[in-house]
Each structure stands twice: as structure tokens, then as C-alpha cells.
């Protein structure tokens, strides 16, 4: 239908509505923007690199109780994401090109208000941020919330320090051969990184966010025989890692020199024979209140299976190192636990990109799922 013919038809329809025609039983509306209920600890942020249109990544925001899709945050080209310490802001370190896929490159930290999901500011950063799949540790805040630490890769590795109070980039700290940012939970000026020689790099910032000290620990894991997944979770200032073959490592960052716990195995010798191993992109979660550790596990593990979805999720008591439960794994490639006293465990189903919700207060029980949620998501973060 041509425009000149359609025009009068629309005009007539509007006129009928405006005159309060007898069929207008539905109340007349005006479009507005939805307001969010205050965030709860059961709100989850699912970062989706959307690899088939990677220039246009997004973060899905979902309420874990109702499974209502609350809204979206734009993460642009391979954007990395993290919440602020108080949960009021959400940061996206990302890249924009002036002509979408070419032209001038601009890297920024976009700031979103989690009460509205609106973009409220941006901070320019050096055009080096890691354009990577989303792993926890590529973008983190210091414990006091003052600085945002941005993993860079050119592919030389460094960390950009952004002052969140002054809203400006402060310094770039070279971290050659090392990866991720692991913020100390008791000394906010300190962070660590995992290094390719099996050591931990420990960096201390001064009050302005510039490098004050840097030291390498002794080797504490064997990156050749049994590499560590880069994701860490903390209980206090003890930071936990798992290895490809299923050992738990820990590093205490409360002192200037890290103290390492004795590695222990998630698997019995019989399970090791069947090659039960952790797998995925975010293979561990902890509930800090109860010291429980959740791990995504698959059997028949082998070289190259380290990103495979879970056949089971195993639950451990971190203090006694005892396994307390095994449940079906929901094909999880990433998991994250809320930290309230009625915790949920969120799992991302790697096969169909659905969000699976477990109640985790006592026994871990799968309750509901939202399918599909994402295109190619790898990172979950829960509201503090």
C-alpha cells in the first residue's frame, strides 16, 4: 500500500480512538519507561558477548526469584563487566569504533546505574582493554570501591587503574606474563594476578592508584602439569582456585607476601581414574556465609575438555573439605551464588544458553529455568 493511501487510514483510526469510540474498552495509555523494583541479592547479571554480532554485546539482567527479564545493559565490542562494591553501579570496559567496525578506536568504562539500568557516565581509558570472552577477573574493583582495575592485552599484558571517585584513568601497570585481577579483601590497595610460571604477582598501589610495589611469589601451581582456571572466589581474604585436574588451591592476600594453602583434591582416587574434572568458564562459586564451594564437574575429562559443560555440580564444605552433595549439572559452564542467607545458585546452561536457578540454602535443588536467555554468555554476577 502506498503511503498516501495508508496515511488517511491511520488518521481515521486515531480520530476514532480520540473520540472515545465505543470499542475502546482498554484504557488509553501513554508510553513511559518501566521502573525497577529495588535490586535484591537474587538479581543476576549475565554478560553475553553475543559472538555472532560481537560488536553489539549485552548484559541480561534477570530477577532470580520470578525469572523476570528486568532489562539489558549494552556491553558493545567484547566489553568486560563488573558491579561496584555497593552494587549501585555497573561498569563496562569496552571498545567503540567511530564507524562500527573501523575508524577511530575509543576505549571507555561505561557507567550504568543499577537502579535504572541507564548509562550515567563514561571514563576514557587507553585503547588496550582485553577484548576477550568474559571471565571473572578481567575487570574488578578494589575492596574499598575506589579503583577499577582493567585487564589489558595488546597482547602484552598490563592493568589500567581507573579512579572511580575522580572518574578518570590514573595509571597503567605492566603485568607481563600474568593475567586477571584478584583484589585483596583486607588491604584495598593490593591486588594479585596469576602468572604463566606458576607464581602470583602481587601489586600494591599508592593512595592515588599508582604502582607502589610489585613482587612475585614462589611458584605455587604447575601450569604445565595441572594449570589453574583463572577464576577465583574469596572467603575473606583467602582466594580459591581450581585446577584442570580437580585440585583446590588457595592464596591468602592479607599480608604483603601471599600465603598458600595446601592443595586438596575434589576427586577421590576412583573418581580421578574416571577423570572427573572441573570444566567451563566460571567453574566455581562460593557461599561465604556457609563456606560452601560449588564446582561444575564432568567425567571422562581429557586434554581439551576444560571448557566442557557440567554433568554434575558438586558441593563441598570448604572447612572440612568434605563433599556434601552431587546434583545434575544442567550443562553448566558458569555458576555464581547469591550471598544472602537464602542463597540461590545460578548456572548458565552452555548447551542452550538458558539460566538455571537452584535453591542453595540447605540442599542444592534445581527450581526453575529461563530458556533461552543468552546467545553466547560466559559470566554471571549476582547483586551484592
Amino acid at each position, binding site marked *: 500500500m502506498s503511503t498516501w493511501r495508508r496515511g488517511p487510514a491511520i488518521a481515521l483510526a486515531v480520530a476514532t480512538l480520540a473520540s472515545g469510540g465505543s470499542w475502546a474498552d482498554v484504557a488509553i495509555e501513554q508510553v513511559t519507561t518501566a521502573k525497577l523494583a529495588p535490586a535484591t541479592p537474587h538479581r543476576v547479571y549475565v554478560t553475553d558477548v553475543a559472538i555472532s554480532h560481537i560488536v553489539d554485546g549485552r548484559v541480561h539482567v534477570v530477577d532470580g526469584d520470578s525469572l523476570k527479564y528486568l532489562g539489558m545493559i549494552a556491553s558493545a565490542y567484547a566489553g568486560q563487566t563488573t558491579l561496584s562494591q555497593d552494587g549501585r553501579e555497573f561498569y563496562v570496559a569496552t571498545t567503540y569504533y567511530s564507524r562500527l567496525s573501523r575508524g577511530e578506536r575509543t576505549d571507555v568504562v561505561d557507567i550504568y546505574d543499577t537502579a535504572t539500568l541507564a548509562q550515567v557516565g563514561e571514563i576514557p581509558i587507553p585503547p588496550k582493554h582485553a577484548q576477550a570472552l568474559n571471565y571473572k577477573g578481567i575487570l574488578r574493583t578494589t575492596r574499598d570501591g575506589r579503583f577499577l582495575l582493567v585487564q589489558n592485552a595488546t597482547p602484552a599484558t598490563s592493568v589500567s587503574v581507573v579512579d572511580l571517585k575522580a572518574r578518570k584513568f590514573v595509571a597503567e601497570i605492566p603485568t607481563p606474563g600474568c593475567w586477571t585481577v584478584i583484589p585483596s579483601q583486607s588491604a584495598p590497595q593490593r591486588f594479585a594476578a596469576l*602468572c604463566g610460571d606458576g607464581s602470583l604477582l602481587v601489586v600494591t598501589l599508592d593512595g592515588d592508584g599508582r604502582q607502589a610495589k610489585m613482587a612475585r611469589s614462589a611458584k605455587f601451581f604447575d601450569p604445565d602439569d595441572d594449570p589453574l582456571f583463572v577464576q577465583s572466589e574469596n572467603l575473606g581474604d583467602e582466594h580459591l582456585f581450581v585446577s584442570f585436574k580437580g585440585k583446590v588451591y588457595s592464596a591468602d592476600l592479607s599480608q604483603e607476601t601471599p600465603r598458600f594453602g595446601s592443595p586438596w583434591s575434589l576427586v577421590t582416587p576412583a573418581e580421578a581414574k574416571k577423570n572427573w574434572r572441573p570444566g567451563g568458564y566460571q567453574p566455581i562459586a562460593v557461599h561465604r556465609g556457609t563456606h560452601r564451594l560449588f564446582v561444575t564437574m564432568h567425567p571422562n575429562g581429557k586434554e581439551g575438555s576444560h571448557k566442557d559443560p557440567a554433568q554434575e555440580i558438586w558441593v563441598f564444605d570448604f572447612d572440612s573439605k568434605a563433599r556434601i552433595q552431587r546434583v545434575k549439572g544442567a550443562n553448566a559452564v558458569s555458576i555464581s551464588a547469591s550471598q544472602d542467607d537464602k542463597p540461590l545458585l545460578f548456572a548458565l546452561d552452555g548447551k542452550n544458553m538458558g539460566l538455571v536457578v537452584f535453591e542453595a540454602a540447605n540442599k542444592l535443588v534445581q527450581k526453575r529455568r529461563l530458556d533461552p536467555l543468552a546467545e553466547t554468555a560466559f559470566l554471571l554476577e549476582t547483586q551484592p
Partner: protein
Amino acid sequence: MRWFDDFFERGVRGVARRTSRRSALTRIGRLLVGSAFVLPVLPFDRIARTAEAAQKKSPPGETSCDYWRYCALDGYLCACCGGSASTCPPGTEASKVSWIGTCHNPHDGKDYLVSYNDCCGKGSCGRCLCNTNEGERPAYRMGLHNDINWCMANTDSTMFHCTTSVVVGLAEKS
């Protein structure tokens, strides 16, 4: 593993591959760090093509994720995007840096070093996503890591389009 198959509906799985070429991987990792990731790029892989032609049943070809040299690839196969296993699609630019895999060629029984160069400058190809991880390591071993955009060092545009698998040499036995 090809668990992405379930989601992205690609073809049948097939060729079993050898594992554990750790010493070669380590050596290459060191080489990469030491040489700022600049790699020699050898001519096309004629060995595989010859061997492939000699087979009665056609083995997985270069548009299949099961093709032997795709053993540590995470990306869209350039062979489905207008290029080939070792060429970038028209109008894109090969990445200046790459990660390295060691893949077993079942046709001649040899292990080859494979440079996974991304092709850059246009948005994602979106065809034939392949995710394999033999010998893949976290980014603290950057030269063996495939979850990062290897267009990152290109100056015109770091936009990721697809991934090639260029044979760059024979791997020594571990």
C-alpha cells in the same frame, strides 16, 4: 570436545586426536613470548590435501569443525566465510599475532604446529562456529589462549571476523 555442536547444529563428529604434546606447547609458548608473537607463516598445507585426496571416504573437510587442524580453534571458520583454512576472506586483514595449537594429522600420523590467525576488520562472520581446546591454556600462557581476540594488535581495526588455521611447521614428539 564439541559441546557447542548441540547449540550450533554442526555436522557429525569424527576423528579422534592424540593428546599430550605438552613439551612442544611449552616450548612454543616460550618462543612466542620471546619473539613478541611474530611467527613465520609457511606455505599452504599440501600434505593434508594430498592425503585427503587419497582417502576413499572423504574425511572432514575445511568447513567442518572436525577437520584435524582445527583442534584448538575457537571462532568462525574462515573457510565458511569466503576464505579457507589458511586464507582470510576478501576484504579482511590477517591478524598480526596469533595463538598456537598442536594438532595430529591422522593422514600422515604427524603432529603439526598450527597458527590460529584471526581475520579482522569486519563484524563477526557468524558461520561455522567451532570451539575446540586441545592444548589450549588460560591467558597467563597467552600464546596458547583462544578466548581472546587475536585481532587485538591490528592497527586499522581489531574487529574479529573469523579464524584461520595455518600450518606453520612440524611439532617435535614429546
